[in-house]
């Protein structure tokens, strides 16, 4: 017999091949199948969880877009993003009520001569929402202030470090120090007592399929949708947005083709600031304001950015929604105790890092 007999595979080799095939499937179509199956199951079995999840996920999504943009353009993880989100929520509170904490943390004293709720009719509720247009004005002011704040931070800290040729890790540590400063500034200015935008009663509405939503939550979804559309338009339809995507693909190439990368970086901070401020005010509308929340919310934000694929804005949006839904459904279905809610994001993050580090829409790990 002259033909070469193929050696039968050993058990170990079979197992290795199986693992490899399983890994490819798990990291590719399998992941989508699992996510799809989960969503279908959640919508049938845990509708309330999905609704809350989509709302909180919208907040995560807008925050995660900022993180992913910073990852893509400056290549570092911005650990002050969660605290910036909280700061913008508090700025919204300040513009709305004109107050900060007084000598005792529980008091509130007025510092702004005019606040947006002093405007005529600003506090009469719009439609069935629990707030008037004063909150919208405060949100706008907070977005401007947060964008300005991030641009100043970039000017004072990140840009000098980058110019000196610091490594990306140095920037991350600087952002950690800034996170600490922002958090203590919030505690100094507004105290550790929880704050609310409006004490009003929140009205709920019954939608088809037995879904019950607060009107405020509908508002959050609408605003998030508008912001996502705005972001898409900006990134894909404007010159500046295209230049920003080019810079994130290859900063050196962008620079030699005549793009002013410093200007791009500045605009990136503005976009990230506006998005995170809107997210922050929406978070304040959904829950109460607490300075400690900022550092914890980093986890779902990063998990969303990594799940969506670092550097991919639409990935961050999808990742944020998914993290929100998974988190709420895990709690309402009783898989996870409410005290461990935040750890869902951690588990998702670790699983993504193990199975598919480049994320759902990312091109490289």
């Amino acid at each position, binding site marked *: 017999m002259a033909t070469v007999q193929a050696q039968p595979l050993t058990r170990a080799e079979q197992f290795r091949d199986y693992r490899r095939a399983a890994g490819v499937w798990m990291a590719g179509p399998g992941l989508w199948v699992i996510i799809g199956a989960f969503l279908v199951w959640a919508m049938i079995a845990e509708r309330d969880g999905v609704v809350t999840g989509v709302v909180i996920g919208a907040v995560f999504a807008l925050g995660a877009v900022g993180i992913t943009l910073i990852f893509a353009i400056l290549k570092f993880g911005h650990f002050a993003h969660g605290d910036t989100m909280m700061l913008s929520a508090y700025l919204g509170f300040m513009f709305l009520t004109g107050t900060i904490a007084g000598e005792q943390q529980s008091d509130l004293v007025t510092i702004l001569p005019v606040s947006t709720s002093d405007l005529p009719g600003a506090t009469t509720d719009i439609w069935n929402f629990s707030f008037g247009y004063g909150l919208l004005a405060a949100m706008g002011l907070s977005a401007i202030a947060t964008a300005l704040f991030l641009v100043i931070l970039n000017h004072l800290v990140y840009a000098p470090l980058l110019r000196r040729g610091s*490594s990306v*890790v140095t920037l991350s*540590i600087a952002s950690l120090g800034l996170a600490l400063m922002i958090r203590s500034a919030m505690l100094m200015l507004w105290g550790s007592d929880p704050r609310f935008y409006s004490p009003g009663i929140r009205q709920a509405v019954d939608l088809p399929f037995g879904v019950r939503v607060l009107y405020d939550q509908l508002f959050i979804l609408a605003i998030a949708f508008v912001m996502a559309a705005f972001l898409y338009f900006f990134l894909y339809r404007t010159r500046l947005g295209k230049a920003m995507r080019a810079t994130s693909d290859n900063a050196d190439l962008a620079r030699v083709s005549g793009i002013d990368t410093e200007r791009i970086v500045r605009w990136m901070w503005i976009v990230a600031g506006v998005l995170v401020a809107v997210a922050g005010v929406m978070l304040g509308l959904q829950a109460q304001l607490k300075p400690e929340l900022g550092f914890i919310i*980093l986890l779902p934000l990063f998990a969303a950015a990594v799940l969506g694929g670092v550097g991919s804005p639409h990935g961050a949006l999808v990742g944020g929604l998914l993290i929100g839904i998974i988190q709420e459904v895990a709690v309402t279905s009783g898989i996870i105790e409410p005290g461990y809610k935040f750890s869902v994001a*951690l588990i998702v993050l*670790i699983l993504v890092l193990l199975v598919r580090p480049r994320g759902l829409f990312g091109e490289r*790990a």
Partner: protein
Amino acid sequence: MTAQTTPASNPPENAPARWQWRTLLAPISVLLVTGVILGITYEQSGDVAAVARFYAAFVTVAAILAILALALNIQWGYTGLFNFGVAGFFLVGAYTAALVTKDPDNDQYADYVGGFGPDLDILPFLSSDQWFPFLVALAAAGAVSGGLAFLLSIPTLRLRDDYLAITTIGIAELLRRIAIEEQWLGNGTRGLGGIPRPLEDLVGGSDYRYVLLVIAVISLALVYVLLERGVRSPWGRVLRSLREDELATQASGKSVQSFKTQSFVLGAVIMGLGGATYAFQSRAISPETFTHFFGTFLIWTMVMVGGSGNNNGAIVGAYVVWGFWQSTLLIQSYDLPDLLATRISFIRDMALGALIVIVLLLMPAGLVPEKRGVSIWAERAARRSGQAQRAPPPASSAGGGGDGVS
């Protein structure tokens, strides 16, 4: 030989030592902190003995925190690993040590697992109940913390640096939440009190604090000597080269993943030991002790202020930063205006955050800059042959912002 890079401000090793005002920074800040601490305590008590008691306790905690700073320094300073969850390993070490050494729970207000204290009195000589359980507790604390680090290293260490950072933040928060939620494990929010202390029954009374001081300083010295030997060995050189240029290290045949894991686990083991010592020192621990702020940021500030990649720096940084922390606590006992009194702890937090940023911006090398060097053997050989060792050409220090992704 691996080329070492140092910040450009340092003179090369073979240049004649040039006097720099910067070399005075470390002694000045140490003296300043000591002066403030001693001054305020003396002013408040007017009693030298009371000052000595306070200072002994102060140095004890500073030494314990310096152990943690050294551990972080091996991970971050020497290897460039981004552990933002020091608090988690700190907590694990402290809780493990407490659960091992405590008596079993027999009280309706306390609920926890373990409590092997009395069972560990197994050696029939030298009143072993006064020291043997504590050695077991140290070993357990190191093992649990190191094991945790090993598990964590699997998904995170082969990826971008930032992923390790965010995962460790999450793990630290998760561990703290477990300590709060799982009543049966560690007595929930009330925490664990009445943790036994080594040698306490032998040297009772108020002099015990000096025993504790000696124990803490000896532990610090042991960790220091161990780490100094480690980082000056070929092993330590691989770590430093990993920090400087991962690709080049890999190209010269070193397993990046393996060395990173070793460094991460070693650091975590030492953090566990530090946590255990902290539990013995403070007698009572609760989840509130191990917040991100106290457990992580404080230690990071110590390493950054002292100068990363430098064990002496970590110790100096621990002393100075802890001194700063304690002085803000001491100031609180003065009659401050309400506006300040309710906010002094936030001002302190802000100052620590600002310290990190200012150090990064203005003096990235810290109080005690890292010395360039290849290995002790090469230095000795150079000294013996009487000629200055030719300094390796400075490799380009970790390039622009763009090269962190590989």
